């Protein structure tokens, strides 16, 4: 669709949707959200690019290939699950650091579920984009 309205809107919507998708992912542990829905939104902003311009431009925006995103995402998830095995705990054990203050964000906790969820996020982005690009190119 070569519409000038869509193109200009996409250019402004892209960072907003991308930031919102990361916000949803980070929020997922204690409130509604999570890696899956964050990934869907993250894929949406690239899909919007594919609709407004064409698939080649969207691929350039993405910079990495979709199947590599899937591989990296699954690797994050597997490593997050395997971390416990190294120490001797069961598979998929969770580890959290204690809360430490970050200047703009307040108290922040980091842990293996965050790594796992980012893996889920990247995998979902990769899968959905793979589907959309394949169907759009036909």
């Amino acid at each position: 669709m070569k519409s000038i309205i869509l193109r200009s809107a996409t250019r402004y919507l892209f960072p907003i949707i991308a930031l919102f998708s990361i916000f949803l992912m980070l929020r997922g542990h204690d409130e509604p959200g999570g890696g899956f829905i964050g990934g869907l939104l993250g894929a949406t902003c690239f899909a919007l690019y594919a609709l407004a311009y064409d698939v080649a431009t969207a691929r350039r925006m993405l910079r990495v290939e979709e199947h590599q995103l899937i591989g990296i995402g699954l690797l994050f998830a597997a490593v997050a699950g395997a971390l416990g095995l190294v120490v001797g705990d069961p598979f998929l054990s969770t580890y959290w650091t204690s809360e430490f203050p970050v200047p703009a964000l307040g108290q922040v906790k980091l842990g293996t579920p965050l790594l796992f969820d980012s893996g889920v996020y990247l995998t979902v982005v990769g899968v959905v984009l793979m589907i959309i690009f394949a169907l759009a190119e036909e």
Partner: protein
Amino acid sequence: MEVVLAVVIGSLYGAGLYLLMRRSLIKLVIGLALLSQAANLLIFTAAGLRSSQAPLIPKGAAAPLGEVADPLPQALILTAIVIGFGVIAFTLALFHTAYMRLGIDDVDQMQATDT
């Protein structure tokens, strides 16, 4: 409330199975989608409709205040929805390829690989 949901689930299953047995490929896909939605609703209803409060513990408390919804079937349904999404996406792509490759939209005519 369970009666209403049971009727809805029953009609979804009925519609899904009816569409599954049609000759057109597209109706087959819609039937599969309806079947998976019916299964999700079935989990939701079978686990008991207790409350609509989100199953979250407020900060500093040790247990949820008051009665909350059961989180386990929510997790089951979420997983099932995600799996269903992937499966329906694949099925659509497969049936599209089948239509392009074989040129027919009729399941009854696709008998080349049968015995």
